[in-house]
C-alpha cells in the first residue's frame, strides 16, 4: 500500500523555531544566529561587539560548542548573561536546544540575543533556531573558494563578515572574489570587511547592528 505523506522532514524543528520566534517577537528582542567554520573568529567578534555596544545595547549570549565552556567564560568575564550549550557531538544547534536555555535569561532586560553556533560551515545553515537573521564569518585564511563550496550557508546568511583582512598580504585570497561569489549566491547579502585583531572595519558593523536592533524594537512597539 502506498501512502502519500508530503511533510517537511525538519517540520518539528521549524515548529519549535517559530514558537521561539513568537516569544522573541513578544519581547521585542533581536536574535542573531552567528555561524562560521571553527576558528574564523566568532567569539572574538562577539567580544569586540560587546565591548563597543554594551553601554547602548543589553546583550545576552548562547554559546554552542561540542565540548568545553571556554567561550562562555570569555563572554561571562564581560559581565554579560551567557549560557553554554554543549551538544556532545552534534554539529549544530537546533530550536529545541535554544528553547531549553529560556529559563536562564530574563528576556525583558535584553535587546539582543546572540546565538553563537557550533563551528561548522555546513550543518548549522539547515536548522532554524528562531532567529531574526543569520550572520556568518569567513576568514581570509580559509580561502576565496568557500562561497561556491558551501552555497547553502552563504544563501541563508543575511550578513557576511570577511574577517582577518590584516592577513591579506600573507595569504592567496581575493576579497573581491569572495564578495563576487557571495553576491551571486545571495544578491541581498550585506558584506563587511573586518579585522578583529586591528579593529579595521568594525565600526561599520557595530553601526549596522545597532540600527538593526533599534529598527526591530521600533517596529515591535509600533505593532503593540
Amino acid at each position, binding site marked *: *500500500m502506498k501512502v502519500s505523506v508530503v511533510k517537511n*522532514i525538519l517540520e518539528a524543528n521549524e515548529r519549535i523555531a517559530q514558537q521561539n520566534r513568537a516569544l522573541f517577537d513578544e519581547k521585542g528582542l533581536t536574535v542573531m544566529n552567528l555561524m562560521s567554520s571553527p576558528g574564523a573568529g566568532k567569539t572574538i567578534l562577539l567580544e569586540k561587539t560587546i565591548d563597543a555596544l554594551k553601554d547602548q545595547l543589553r546583550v545576552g549570549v548562547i554559546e554552542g560548542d561540542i565540548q568545553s565552556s571556554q567561550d562562555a567564560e570569555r563572554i561571562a568575564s564581560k559581565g554579560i548573561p551567557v549560557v553554554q550549550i554543549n551538544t556532545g557531538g552534534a554539529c549544530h544547534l537546533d530550536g529545541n536546544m535554544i528553547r531549553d536555555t529560556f529559563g536562564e535569561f530574563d528576556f525583558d532586560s535584553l535587546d539582543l540575543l546572540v546565538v553563537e553556533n557550533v563551528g561548522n560551515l555546513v550543518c548549522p545553515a*539547515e536548522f532554524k533556531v528562531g532567529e531574526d537573521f543569520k550572520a556568518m564569518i569567513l576568514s581570509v585564511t580559509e580561502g576565496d573558494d568557500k562561497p561556491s563550496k558551501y552555497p547553502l550557508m552563504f544563501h541563508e546568511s543575511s550578513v557576511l563578515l570577511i574577517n582577518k583582512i590584516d592577513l591579506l598580504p600573507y595569504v592567496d585570497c581575493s576579497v573581491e572574489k569572495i564578495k563576487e561569489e557571495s553576491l551571486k549566491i545571495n544578491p541581498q547579502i550585506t558584506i563587511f570587511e573586518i579585522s578583529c585583531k586591528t579593529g579595521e572595519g568594525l565600526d561599520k558593523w557595530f553601526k549596522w547592528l545597532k540600527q538593526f536592533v533599534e529598527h526591530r524594537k521600533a517596529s515591535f512597539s509600533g505593532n503593540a
Partner: protein
Amino acid sequence: MHEMSIAQSLLDIIKEEMAKNDAKVLRTVRLHIGQLTAIVPESLSFCFEVMTAGTELEGAKLIMEIIPLVGHCQSCDRDFQIENYAFACPYCQSTDIKTVSGEELSIVEMEVE
C-alpha cells in the same frame, strides 16, 4: 554530519504515519531532497540503516530524488534553472529571484503493508 538528526526526524514522521495508517511493515520511503540543501544522500541512507537495524523497520529503503534549483524572476515573470548557484535571471539579469524548488527536504510517499 547532521544526517543523523535528519534521519531521526524522518523516523519520527514515519512512525507517526505508520501508526495513523495502521501499517506494520515499511518497504520504501520516497524523499525529495533539494539541490541547495547540504544533505549527502549516501550518508542519510547510512544513518537511516543504522537507526532501523534490529527494529521492525529494518530493511526499509530510502528512495531519494534530488530536486533541481529552479528560480522565478519577479521582474520578467519567467522560471529558469539556477546554474552554479547564481541567483540572477538569465533573461533579464534581475536579482529579484524567488526560489521555486531546490530547497525542500521532504518525505513524499511511503510504501507500507
